[in-house]
């Protein structure tokens, strides 16, 4: 027995929107995964190469990338909701403030 009603995956609408309808946490999971992947990979690689990681910069960069991804998901109804979009926008704003008010490495 399936844990959720499997959508018709033969069309793009079925694969994306149908799956989001069956598992509402999936688009949020994709956004969180993307944020963590960019942030952790960026900071790890930077600290390997330069010996330090600019955490506010990577937080801002990953928030911006996730916000753009969330914007694409808003084109069609049924993937993400307005609160999720607003939360990604708020994350971008908060990390942007952190980035612009943080001290630079060479200061």
């Amino acid at each position, binding site marked *: 027995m399936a844990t959720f009603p499997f959508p018709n995956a033969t069309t793009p609408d079925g694969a994306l929107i149908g799956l989001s309808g069956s598992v509402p946490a999936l688009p949020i999971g994709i956004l969180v995964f993307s944020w963590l992947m960019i942030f952790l990979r960026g900071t790890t690689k930077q600290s390997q190469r330069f010996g330090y990681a600019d955490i506010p910069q990577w937080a801002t960069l990953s928030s911006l990338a996730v916000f753009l991804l969330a914007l694409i998901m808003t084109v069609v109804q049924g993937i993400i909701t307005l609160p999720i979009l*607003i939360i990604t926008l708020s994350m971008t704003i908060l990390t942007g403030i952190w980035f612009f*008010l943080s001290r630079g490495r060479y*200061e």
Partner: protein
Amino acid sequence: MSGYIRLISGGAFVAVFVLSIIIFATQFAIDNDSDISIVNDERYTDLRSSLTNQLDDLKNDSVTSQDMLFKTTLEAGDEHSSTGAQFKIGPLTALGLAITSFNVGFYTIFGREFSFLATALVSILTFIIGYFTIKAWLGRSPE
């Protein structure tokens, strides 16, 4: 002094950054006829208009501050100006841009129950403004 300049320019950059992404998101929704748009959230349309007004205030403050600096004269033996009025204009307006954006973002994610954290951050920012203002004006740390 570089910290003072960095703080003011940081506040202004925050406003430009926040306005840019809000305008981009709005225009994206209009261009693509999106079903979900941030225009439907009043907080962000309010934030956009208040940031635009605050940027105008900052421009006026900058002009006033520059005018005061041009008109300042120093006599031989003067150590520093007696009022430091030129340092009183600008920082609060610039940081106000960051604080407005911060409050909207913070309340959206955490709700008003955690507003004491926002108050703590605003207090720290105010302290930093005072610290750097005194340092820039008198040329030494205020201890």
